[in-house]
């Protein structure tokens, strides 16, 4: 009962701030609404018996990634983008797609027997580590995937660094550094 009340409060906040992301004119407001949405989603994960997933959501998404996003918005002065119209021709294709996806998701969620019970642990620390790293029971499937994702992220980072550094040695940037 208590968990249901919390769920309703958090759900209203999450959906409301997600709508704000769509409707806000200024990119920074959008980013902030996204932070609020993510924090309330973390609360919902906690209610579903997955405190670990919820806290990682706060740490990684709301903390680190959104901080980077606000950093970029502030550096690039994204306020100039607020003149773009909210709806254009592309929206004609996007809206039906969103509605279709929502309908599919809703159907899938309703048809699965997902009992809402706050007591059962679904994503606790022990359970998560068991699923990911216990190679005895379930074979090395998730373990290998985890390692491969790590390699993928590392290669993405190296690529980003290379792309950012490509212009450093060129003539233009050298002139700029001399001016400074």
């Amino acid at each position: 009962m208590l968990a249901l009340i919390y769920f309703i409060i958090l759900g209203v906040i999450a959906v409301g701030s997600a709508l704000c992301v769509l409707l806000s004119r200024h990119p920074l407001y959008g980013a902030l609404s996204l932070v609020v949405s993510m924090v309330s989603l973390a609360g919902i994960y906690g209610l579903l018996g997955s405190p670990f997933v919820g806290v990682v959501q706060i740490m990684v998404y709301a903390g680190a990634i959104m901080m980077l996003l606000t950093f970029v918005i502030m550096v690039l002065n994204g306020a100039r983008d607020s003149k773009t119209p909210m709806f254009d021709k592309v929206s004609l294709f996007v809206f039906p797609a969103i509605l279709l996806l929502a309908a599919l998701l809703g159907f899938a969620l309703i048809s699965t027997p997902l009992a809402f019970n706050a007591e059962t642990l679904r994503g606790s620390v022990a359970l998560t580590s068991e699923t990911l790293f216990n190679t005895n029971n379930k074979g090395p499937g998730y373990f290998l995937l985890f390692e491969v994702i790590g390699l993928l992220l590392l290669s993405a980072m190296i690529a980003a660094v290379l792309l950012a550094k490509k212009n450093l040695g060129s003539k233009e940037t050298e002139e700029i550094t001399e001016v400074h």
Partner: protein
Amino acid sequence: MMEIIQSKHWVEWLITICKFGFAFVPVIFILLLIPLERRGAGFIQDRQGPNRSYFKIPYFGRIRLFGWVQNACDGLKLFFKENYSPSGVNKFIFSIAPAIPFAIVLISPCVIPWFAPMVFTMGDEVIRISGQTVDTEVGILLLFGLSSLSAFGAVLAGWASKSKYSLLGGLRTSAMTISYEVCLGLSIMGILLLVGSFRIDEIIAWQEANVWGIVAQPVAFFCFLIAMIAETGRAPFDVAEGEPELVAGFHTEYGAMQFGLFYMGEYSHIGINSILVACLFLGGYSVPFVTTETIQSNIGISLAVLCGIFVVAILAFLHLLYRYARWYKKSAASNKQVILREYSLYKILGWAAVVVFAVAGVASALFFHPQFTVIDGQPVYGIGVALGTALIHILVLLVKAIFFCWIWIWVRWTLPRFRYDHVMNLGWKVILNIALVNLVLTALIAKLLGGI
């Protein structure tokens, strides 16, 4: 609703509700830290520090409380100033930004264990109460997540102020937070690996059973301390405020209590971080060389020792007062009569406290012999013993935390400040790598020796 109320004994409810009071510990730390910082700075720079404000009471005259009155005056001034904002600022974000760090400071203490889990008998029931307000298995991760959220306050303040200095300060804050979050997380991974849990109370129990974290992980301790100091954004890492470069950084445009909220947020952040360092590396609430069981079986003597420590501390304070008084009597200071009058109040209070604590200590040593019942092979005592143990634990934790608070102030007033690129170099190229090597070495040694 009645089921929830009846699921716990009323004593359990009472203590659970009282535990919410711990949310205000960091706020109380502000009261301690501001005089400590000001008088400490004075001590390091060989001057008096602000201690001239006073209030008057009959007979004893001007009471200054060693500078505490000065802080009350400063606080009152901030409260009663007009909330001013320059034109052109983003009103909503400008006014909500200072509240973010302070609000998070009120949430953060919920995962810190203040005492060992209480187990006591009440009538026929055995009642167990954990030391944290929120008993969760992700304790320390939640703390880190919240502290990374609190940087949003500074970033948004910098952006909403519509001033170049503020914007630069905000940008630097976000860069600092991202870089030092990584070091912070990685440097404690070693001890988490040894303990095998994210729960702070289990980390403390491990340290109580084995060795303190500072002995097991000395490198991690220094990495963690540096990253912590950098994360609070104080000198020598004050690039976000940067008085020589950025006026006052992200809070340049703020005044009155909005500035006060940033100030209080910073100080209570120091309080939280000191408590966290004490929990992770100095054994938290555990008393050195004494286990909780020993304390509980000799609770009368333990409380007597506690009272004895209080008596010694107050006697040291009185010694200080008498020396000052002797010095003032000889000196040619024009206000020496006033000061001696003030000191006579402290002397009376000090001697009264000495008598009270001495009597209490002797009484508890002589008359406090707890009864216990054996449950599951463990002796379980009554509520008095549980509360007494909790009191000792809380005081031990606070003493350790206050020691780290002093380190914060010590570092701030002795080291010269870093330049921005030096801070980034230190974070990414030095501390991060040391923490990584430390983690790998710890994992190797733990695997080879302990077989964890």
